[in-house]
């Protein structure tokens, strides 16, 4: 594809310049290696960038964080970021997992095709360096998402139950998630999730996981891709992201300086024009 090749060329020259100018110590991206296998690679020399590719979608945020954790002082890593990678890195910066100063994000746009696979409503990074932004997809138009999020509670509960019961508790969702960084993870602790039984206690396993990510999930879809049982985990997060957007006017991963409303902006004074709870009047008599 012509445009694809043009994007790769653009990326190569941009990244080469970063390495040559010393803006970055290394570049983290995808490379086609021996036997045509595509895998993440750390490029340290400009010449190595010849093997750089941009496809397929590969979540790079978490490995980038791991690299930076053990990097020596003064090390700067340029990361080839898709929209979701960038948002995940922003969330990691907010949670003090990545040093923003040690990171150079190079934004790559996703194709419209990729966006429709991921049900991504924002298939481009906020700082777009390579390629052109494609239109996003409204995840709530997807029939699969609709199936699980629409209808009365009884129907949905049944549907979710069928889906979530497939869980074999492999922890793939957690391991692949770019935001999950806790060690140890709460989901391994006996008081919360007991060991040795499947299906897992779906409520405490999946709901606790979903809630922990409520205000940080960037809907990259890594958990869903990693799930061997094919559980549509992102659908649950879409519901949460919608609640955040509508109730708090907030979306995760957009701005390093934007603070999550769940942890900030509390006021002691009563909210202006706050009505007293409805039940004060409705429940009486």
């Amino acid at each position: 594809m012509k445009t694809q090749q043009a994007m790769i060329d653009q990326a190569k020259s941009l990244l080469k310049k970063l390495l040559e100018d010393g803006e970055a110590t290394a570049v983290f991206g995808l490379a086609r290696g021996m036997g045509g296998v595509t895998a993440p690679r750390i490029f340290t020399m400009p010449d190595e960038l010849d093997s750089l590719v941009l496809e397929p979608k590969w979540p790079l945020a978490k490995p980038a964080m791991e690299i930076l954790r053990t990097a020596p002082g003064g090390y700067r890593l340029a990361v080839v970021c898709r929209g979701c990678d960038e948002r995940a890195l922003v969330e990691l910066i907010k949670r003090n997992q990545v040093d923003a100063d040690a990171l150079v994000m190079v934004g790559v746009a996703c194709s419209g095709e990729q966006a429709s696979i991921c049900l991504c409503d924002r298939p481009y990074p906020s700082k777009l360096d390579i390629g052109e932004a494609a239109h996003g997809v409204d995840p709530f138009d997807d029939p699969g998402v609709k199936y699980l999020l629409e209808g009365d509670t009884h129907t949905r509960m049944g549907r979710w139950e069928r889906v979530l019961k497939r869980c074999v508790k492999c922890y793939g969702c957690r391991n692949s998630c770019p935001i999950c960084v806790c060690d140890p993870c709460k989901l391994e602790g006996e008081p919360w999730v007991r060991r040795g039984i499947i299906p897992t206690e779906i409520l405490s396993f999946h709901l606790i996981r979903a809630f922990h990510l409520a205000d940080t999930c960037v809907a990259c879809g890594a958990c869903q891709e990693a799930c061997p049982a094919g559980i549509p985990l992102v659908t649950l997060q879409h519901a949460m992201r919608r609640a955040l957007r509508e109730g708090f006017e907030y979306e995760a991963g957009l701005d390093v300086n934007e603070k999550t409303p769940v942890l900030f902006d509390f006021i002691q004074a009563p909210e202006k024009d706050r009505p007293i709870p409805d039940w004060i009047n409705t429940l009486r008599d």
Partner: protein
Amino acid sequence: MMTGKESQNPVIVAGGGVAGLTAALDLAAAGRYVELVESAEHLGGRVSELDKIYPGDHCAFCPLWTDIRRVEDHENIRVRLTSRITAVERKPDSIRVTITTEPRYIDESLCVFCGRCREACAADAVRPSWEHASPPSFFIDKTGCTKCGDCVDQCPTGAIDIERPPVEIVLSADDIIWATGFEEVDLTPLPEFGYGTHPDIMTSLEFENWIAEAGVNQGRILRRSNGKEPRNIAFIQCAGARDRRLLPYCSGVCCMHALKQAQWIKRRAPEVGCTIFYTDLRTVGRDYFDYGLRSLRMTTGVDLVRGRPGMIRPLPGGDALALKYENTETQAVEIARFDVVILNGNLAPSQLLPGSEADSPVDLDSQGFVSAGRDGAAPFACGFSREPADIAESVLRASSSAVTLAGRKDGPEP
């Protein structure tokens, strides 16, 4: 500044409301020994009677209760409930204070709050001092008690002694901090307000109790005359205050009080019309103006009318009230019909000592506020005893009095 409590005379704090509690706690924290004298059966004063306090719109229960508990637990404070200062005599190096303690007939340290005495009482003279009073205990209202002794038989712990006499003690004290708060002044001498002619003409404190969440109506807005929901309510500001005939000063807290009550009426029963007749809307304090604005801007807002009604009378038949006032926009005298009228502003400082003013150990101004200590010394008075004050001002003045007293070099001024 830190001296052993055995070596010093106590400081007497008269009044156990917010100001008195604060003064007592501050002095005790500064190492002074305090006798806290409260005339009611429980600590907390007027704030404990308020359902909601402005501008936060929540009850003052928990901070108040916390302070009460701290006072009760403090080793430097002795609390005397149902007690009054009945005489003060000045000596060269101290003052001699006579404190009379009325019996409450039920020993609070033995009362387990089971309520059997209350059930047994045919005269309905047993009551809890306040729903969440500390100590949690019943007391017997002397005026209603027939001394039948039924309650004594019912009490499982033997806490009741209906023959207990009042006790009088005389103390040598260092000084007195007056924090006796305010009283409502009878409005019947001002005929235009019609107070006493109809049950729906209430003072604002009566109304606060009437609509309180913890009160008889559990927060419902009802008329006292027939128990039905009123269509409209009028708040009359400066009723008795800023009036040469009764109280020449501004009571300071009533504008906010009316705005608060109007706002709560609007929240609980939005269809009830609220009109505030006012002279100046005095909203002095953090967020007070904003708070007032909020009640005016509510979807079905509170109406403001400038002016003081000239006449309030029950309509013939008695199911509503007529209110005559001058509409300052049209300059026409209008007569409006209201279901409930609330009179706001009849607050005056409580009398310090039962007896004549000549007995007073401090200088009082013509309205009964403490203006100076006897012989021009610093007046140790806070809250409404000193000047009309809301909660924050009362508490500030209490701490200020306490630090002045704590920092005084030696005993009372000669």
